[in-house]
Structures are given as C-alpha cells and as structure tokens.
C-alpha cells in the first residue's frame, strides 16, 4: 500500500464501539469542603457566599510572619470520613507543603498532606443499579482550599481573553478533605454509571456524617476524573487524562463517556493519549486540553515545618468509630423494609433527597405512605418552583406530620391540607393555627350540609333522577356542587353519604 494517509482522526468514536475495543480504568478524586465553623488554619468563618474578602486574616491571606494552627474539628471530621470509608487511621502524620505559584493561593504553597495521609487503605460498597460494586479507597487527606479567581472582561469567564482578574480569599483556607480511589477496574461499559453512583454514594455518606454541605453546585463537593484506556483487562495501564471541573453527578457520567470516546479515537488512529489536565465543559459536553503534565510539574513537597505532627489518640479514634452513623446502604435497606416501599418508590425517595425527611415525618406520627406522598408530590413541586431543595423548604417534618394528622382526624380534606401547607410555608405558624386563622376546617355539621345537599338536589333534578334510578356513579356531580357551595370546606365522604341517603 502506498496510499498516503491523509485521513483526519475523528474527535470521538461512539461510546459503545469504544468500550467494545478498550477497557476503561478510572480513578476519582473528590474534594469535600468541610462545614466546620472556622477555616483549616485560622479562626476566620468558613461560610459560602459572603462579600468577597471579608472573611480573611493575616493567616489565610498569607501575610508575612503569619503562622497556621490546625483546626481540631477538621481533624475529627477527617478521621470520621476515613472511618466511614473503612480506612486505616494514621498513628502519626504530618502536613506537607505543595509548592506552586498561583495568584489565588496566598502563600504560593498549599498546606496539604503528601505521603502521610490521615486515612488510607479503605473501601466502600456502592450500589450500582441494584448490584454492589466495591470501590477501593487509596487515601483521604486534609488540605486547605485556595481562593477563587474571577476573570473579568473576557467572553467566557476564563482566564484567556480576560482583561483582569479578581481574587476572593474568603475560600482560601477552608478545610478540604481529598478522597482518592484506587484505580477502578473491570467496570467496562458501566464505567460512567459506576463513577456517578460512587460520587452519589459518597455524597450521601458525607451528608449522613454531617461533615459537609456536599453541594456540588456550590463547590463544596468537587470531582476530578482520571481515565485511561487499555487494550484488555490484563494489559498494562494506559496513559491517563485528569479531567477537572466535573461538578454535577450527570457531568461525572458524561465526562467519563466523553473521555472514553475521545481517547479511543486517539488510540484507534495509532496515536498516544497525552498525559494532561483537561477541563470539562458542562454546556458543550466535551473536555478540552489544559496544561500538559510534564517533568516540569514538580510540587517540591516537604513536611510543613510550621505545624507539629498529628498523632490521634487511639481511644479518641475508637470513640469516633463507635459513634459513626449507620452506613447509608444499611440504613436505606432498613428504612425500606420498615416503610414497605417498593424499590422504585425508594429510588424516588433517594432521588429527591427525602429519606431523612420522611424518616423524621414518620417519627412525628405520620404513616410512611402519607409522608412519602407529601414530600414527593406537593412539597417537591413547591421546592422545585422555589429553586430549593426539600430540606431548604421552610417547613419541618413535624409540621408535615401535623398536617397529615389533621387529614386523618377529618378536620381538613386533602385539598384544604394543601392550603394549610401554603400557610405554613408562608410563615403563618403551625398547621393547627393556619386552619383556624384561614378558617379551613371542614364542615362536619350535618344540618348545614343537609341544607346544601337538598339545594343541590333541587337544582339538579336530572342527576337526582339518575341516582334514584340506581346510577350511583352520577353522585359525583351533586357532591361537586355541594363542595363548591361549601367552598371546599366539607368532608366529601360525608356529603356522598348524605346524597345517597336522601335519594335512596
């Protein structure tokens, strides 16, 4: 063959083709911002969304002479995370400096951990569409977050083309835990689903520990995805790319699919995959090349001389271990059995982030089915309209249980109950108060109902005749008329009984 090869390499190949030819190996690095009151090494408040550069001090601004002091609460959270991931907890470990220059990093080094992480050698069992996949954890280590750069004047908000940059150091020094998996192998075509399930699982586990807000949209949970392809499961590992900025569950799945397809295209063409950092673009669904990892990238790690080693007392670690919450999978299974929900129903509950809310609503006296109904329909709709999560709605599980209690007692019907919810959400007080102040109680006084039923029969002689003739199904029209007259404040069941009594 002498045909010169002028064909261009396609950017991507179809995902199914790619995984048919190559075996993907993933590594996931998840950064979790802890929800401690103060930062990792100073007393500044660690909160999201404050005015830029108002939560700073000499330490987190890296002023000359300032020194760090470790936040003990952050160490405790790190140990609890390690324990929840079945890790070993170091008897003795140190912080290290990771040296590189960047304007959003005040000291031009990040205080992190290097070869002595606080937690290492663990695993966690992830449910992937009903099947359990064990993900091995290499390490979980402590570090500090950087500031946040805002690039102004360019079209994309990225540094390229920007006229200047603004830096907010409020985030600088917020405690981070980086959780690194070992290479996840053997997932084949399911690689994207496994990655997504792992991150969702981790989010649930961390939420259960109460150590982080785990809001991917606010950056309190961030994911970097390492991916490589190899010819077969027994071939040696291929060159990997590290994709940053993968900040939603859906993106985790999509970014891996994309990288599999992209790397397969390179390999198909006989090219090599470049070891590099890539950026995920949520809008276009592609990754683009960032900086190439080379020998020049040398962080010159060395033990942080401004801090003393951390040697967690074993008794303390044991206490933390025994006080860990029930693992999510176990809790999920227990609750599903207790509640008698189907797999599908349970999945919806989890998808809506309603498990704890339902648990608390049931604890406050509602039936599991009613608790699920309120949270997943009526309240889910309102949360969605308000752009909030269920937990952020200004209503407590106890209040939801109280609303259901009013329904069970026959004091309000479902329609009125929705108005009671409106009242509670509008800050009008407890459900009982809303019923009173809004005058929502159903009319259970038979004499006034009886008058209204008589009037309805009089006004609808045709319908009445049908019912007398045995067509009970026609009663609905009369019930509707009565309910309308009573402005909804009647027990529809009782109205039906009265209608049928009078026309029998």
């Amino acid at each position, binding site marked *: 063959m002498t045909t010169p090869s002028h064909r261009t390499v396609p950017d991507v190949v179809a995902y199914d083709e790619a995984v048919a030819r190559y075996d993907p190996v993933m590594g996931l690095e998840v950064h979790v911002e802890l929800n401690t009151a103060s930062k990792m090494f100073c007393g500044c408040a660690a909160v999201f969304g404050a005015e830029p550069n108002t939560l700073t001090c*000499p330490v987190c*601004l*890296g*002023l*000359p*002479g*300032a*020194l*760090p*002091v*470790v936040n003990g609460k952050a160490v405790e959270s790190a140990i609890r995370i390690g324990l929840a991931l079945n890790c070993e907890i170091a008897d003795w470990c140190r912080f290290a*400096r990771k*040296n590189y*220059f960047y*304007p959003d990093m*005040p*000291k*031009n*080094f990040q205080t992190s951990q290097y070869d002595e992480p606080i937690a290492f050698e663990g695993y966690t069992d992830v449910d992937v569409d009903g099947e359990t996949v064990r993900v091995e954890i290499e390490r979980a280590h402590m570090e500090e977050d950087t500031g946040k750069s805002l690039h102004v004047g360019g079209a994309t908000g990225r540094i390229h083309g920007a*006229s200047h*940059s603004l*830096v907010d150091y409020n985030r600088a020094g917020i405690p981070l835990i980086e959780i690194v998996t070992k290479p996840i192998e053997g997932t084949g075509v399911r690689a994207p689903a496994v990655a997504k399930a792992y991150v969702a699982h981790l989010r649930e586990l961390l939420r259960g520990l109460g150590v982080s807000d785990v809001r991917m949209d606010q950056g309190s949970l961030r994911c970097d995805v390492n991916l490589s392809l190899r010819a077969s499961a027994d071939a040696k590992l291929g060159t990997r790319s590290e994709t940053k900025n993968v900040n939603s569950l859906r993106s985790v799945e999509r970014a891996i699919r994309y990288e599999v397809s992209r790397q397969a295209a390179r390999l198909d063409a006989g090219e090599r995959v470049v070891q590099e950092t890539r950026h995920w673009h949520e809008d276009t669904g592609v990754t683009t090349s960032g900086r190439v990892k080379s020998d020049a990238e*040398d962080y*010159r*790690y*060395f033990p942080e*001389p*401004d*801090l*003393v080693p951390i040697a967690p007392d074993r008794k303390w670690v044991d206490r933390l271990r025994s006080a860990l919450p029930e693992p999510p999978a176990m809790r999920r299974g227990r609750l599903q059995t207790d509640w008698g929900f189907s797999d599908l129903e349970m999945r919806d509950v989890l998808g809506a982030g309603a498990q704890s809310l339902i648990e608390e609503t049931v604890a406050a006296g509602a039936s599991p089915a009613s608790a699920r109904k309120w949270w997943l329909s009526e309240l889910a709709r309102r949360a969605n309209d308000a752009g909030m999560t269920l937990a952020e709605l200004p209503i407590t599980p106890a209040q939801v249980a109280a609303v259901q209690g009013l329904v069970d007692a026959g004091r309000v019907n479902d329609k009125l109950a929705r108005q009671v919810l409106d009242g509670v959400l509008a800050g009008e007080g407890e459900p009982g108060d809303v019923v009173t102040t809004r005058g929502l109680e159903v009319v259970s006084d038979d004499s006034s109902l009886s008058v209204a039923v008589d009037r309805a029969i009089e006004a609808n002689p045709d319908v009445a005749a049908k019912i007398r003739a045995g067509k009970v199904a026609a009663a609905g029209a009369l019930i509707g008329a009565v309910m309308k007259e009573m402005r909804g404040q009647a027990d529809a069941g009782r109205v039906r009984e009265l209608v049928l009594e009078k026309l029998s």
Partner: protein
Amino acid sequence: MSDVTRLSAAALASALADGDVTSLQATQAHLDRIGAVDGAVHAFLHVDADGALAQASAADERRAAGGELPELLGVPIAVKDIATTKGLPTTAGSRILEGWVPPYDATVVARVRAAGLPILGKTNMDEFAMGSSTEHSAFGPSHNPWDLDRIPGGSGGGSSAAVSAFEAPLAIGTDTGGSIRQPGAVTGTVGVKPTYGGVSRYGLIALASSLDQAGPVTRTVLDAALLHDVIGGHDPLDSTSIDTQWPSMAAAARAGDISRLRIGVVKELGGEGYQTGVRTRFEESVQLLVDAGAEVIEVSCPHFELALATYYLILPSEASSNLAKFDAMRYGRRVAPDGVRDPSAEQVMAASRKAGFGDEVKRRIILGTFALSSGYYDAYYGQAQKVRTLISRDFASAFEQADVLVSPTAPTTAFRIGEKIDDPLAMYLNDIATIPANLAGVPGMSLPSGLADEDGLPTGFQILAPPLEDARLYRVGAALEAMLVDRWGGPLLDQAPRLEVGL
C-alpha cells in the same frame, strides 16, 4: 542623671522605678543618641520617634497610676525589622517589602508593648536574615561601633549595633543560624537564642521555620534575662511554641551560680580555623570558670562537622518555600516586566521577584528549589534531615557528660565591610559554631569574653544548654560575666571608642 543611654536596662528600670528619670526623658535621650550617631552606624531602617514618645508617656502615666508594674516598664527597645509591627513599616531588609505596613503585631512585639517598652524603631538586617554582616541588606550595611569600617555581624547587625552604640539598651533579634549570637560576639554585646519553641514565631517573617527563633540582644546577661521573660512563653498562635511553665530567667541571672558545674568544651568547635585572639580569650574564660569551681571536660560531637552542609540544605529549602509568598500580588513592591503589554500575573510575579530580591536571596531560593526537587529530595533535603537527627544525638550524649557546652561564638572578630561579600562560603563559615544549636533546637548564649590582642576587637564566648534549660545559660553566663567585668574593671563596652556627636 548624667547619661541614661549608658545605663543597662536593669539600671534604667531601677532609675525609672525610683523616679530619678521618666520614660519620656529616657526615650528622648535614646532618640537623641540615634539622631547623633546613627548616620554613622546605620543601625536603624526606621525610627518611630512620635510613637516611642507616645508609648513613653503612656508608660509614665501607668507608673504614676501605680499597682503591679512590669519591671522593664518605660525602658525603650529596638526591634529587628523582621518582626511585624502594626502601623510601622516592616521590610526584613528587602526591597520587595518596601513600603509595606503590617496590619498586625508579631507576638513578641505585642508582648513588648504590653510590658510598656517604647519601641524606638526597626533595626537593619541582612535581607530576609540571610547573611552574617548586614551587607546583604537592601538598604546598606550597618557599621560596628568598635570600628566603623567593620561589620556588626549578621543578620541582626542592626540590633547589635544599636545596643553597642548605646542607641538602645535592648533589642529584639532573631537567630536562624547565629544571627543573634554572632553579632553579639563581634560587637561585645550579649545575645541569646532561646530553646526552639521558647519564644513565639508568630509575626516573624520566616526564613527557615524549623530553625528561626527570636531572642534578646542586650549589653548584660541580666538585661537579656529580663527581656527573655517579657517575650518568652507559650503562644497558641504558633503551633511549634512549647506549652510549659518557664522559670524566671531574671532570677537565674541574679543567682549566677557555677558551683559543681560540669562544663563541656566541644572539641569540634575550636582550634583550627579560629583566630588566635578568639581562642586565647575563650581559654581564659574557661579558666576563670575552673578557678571558680567548675569542672571542665572535653566532649566530642562528631557530626558537628556536617552541620554547615546540613544547614545550607535545610535553610534554603524552607526559605525557598517561605519566600514564595512575596509575589507582589497582595502587598509589597510590584514591578511590571519590561516591554510586555498587558503582562500576565505570572510575568508580574517574575519581574517583581527579580527586581525585589537581592543576589544572596536568589542564590538561596535557587539552592532550596533544587534541593527539594523530585529526584533530588532524598539525596539533599532528606539526607540533611537525617544528619540533623545525628547532630541532636551528639548534643544529647554530650549533655549526659556536661551541664553546659561552651565554645567561641564566632571563629573571628569583626571583619571589614566588603572583605567577604564576594565569597559566600567564607561568609557562611562565620556561623560554624552557632549553627548546631539551631539544628538541634537547643538554647545558646553569646557574651563578650574580651578583646583579641591582634586587633583589639571583641570576641564572643558561647554557652549551650539542653533544650528547655535556658535558665542554665543565664545562671552560668551571669557568673562568668561578673568575673570578666571584674577583671576588666568595668563593662567591656567602656573600652569601645566613643562615637562622637556629629560624626
């Protein structure tokens, strides 16, 4: 009062307590002395006359109000320009920090203020404390009052010059490899490097975090002890600060006892390479101690031979990282790169660091960056840490045989300005006897042992004690000082040439 600037801090404190002089008068007298001689000495980078006088007035008012008063209340002090001072410029001797005014006080400064010592100003130093002569200060060298053509030591040459020129009775220094003790030796003053962790590092612009330690620079052992008591003690803002109850250093100095003391002369810190006059004065001091009842033995610390090499790997490594923050992004001098339109942040950082750092700083940043690089770390930084452990073990076994170790502080008397500026290795050798203490974290003191016969310049006597045993330095140092002053017929500095007004 004839001349309050000639008084020791302890004597001035007594005069203040007795109402013989006010702090305002004493502070003004020192400011006048600074005005008269600092043109020649150049001990200060910044003099804060207004601030010092205001603090002096406040001290006088506090004394008038009575009650429990700090012993050094109203005694003025000078502070090395490496400690942050709220509202006062702090440069660490570098152009890169020119014009920076810190928004906070270093802990040592806060403690000095709380004890009511008026701060006269900030003293000169080698840039970022890298040097043994102050010749690496970006703002020009300080001069030794014994001979203005000579160096006052370094890096804290400004503090030692200020104290020896009677511009201040007290000064704060920092010692990473000898920067308090070597200047003390060459100016005939007293300098103490406390146990690592004994004095807070919070607010000291870091050179090498695991070696840096602040301490007193004074004219007498008792004065050093009094200042040590003010600045020392646990600080929760410094994680390496030792949380312990320290004994009174002043009480130890006042006790001044050497009976039944076992003195170890370190074989490796003397002999070859040490100036004859330095050795002679050292041996005389040892003999004085023996005559007074101390037992002398020779101890060997074989790994001290490796101390200098170890130090010059650890120090630059840590310094290369500590100095990374000076990037002109948030504070300090910003320089735009030549001929670049719309320079990037990285280009501005590079240009500012190029213009802002002196050659010695760049040399050490490059050394440290190299020593920490992947592939070299084990051979350099890692190996240096291992040797450091061996040096600590040498100290531990030496202190099993002796209560204190002694040596000359510096191998030579003050050299001429310019003499070693082009020979970094010769410069580094000045700290050969002081560096081991920093590597092991043990406390050390230098006090004057006399004048070398060949050049008539001061020589220093170093005392080292086990970690946490700083009080032992004062007990021994004060006893030796008393015998020496007795022999000299007065303080050594009385023999220094008078710097005349208008020089």
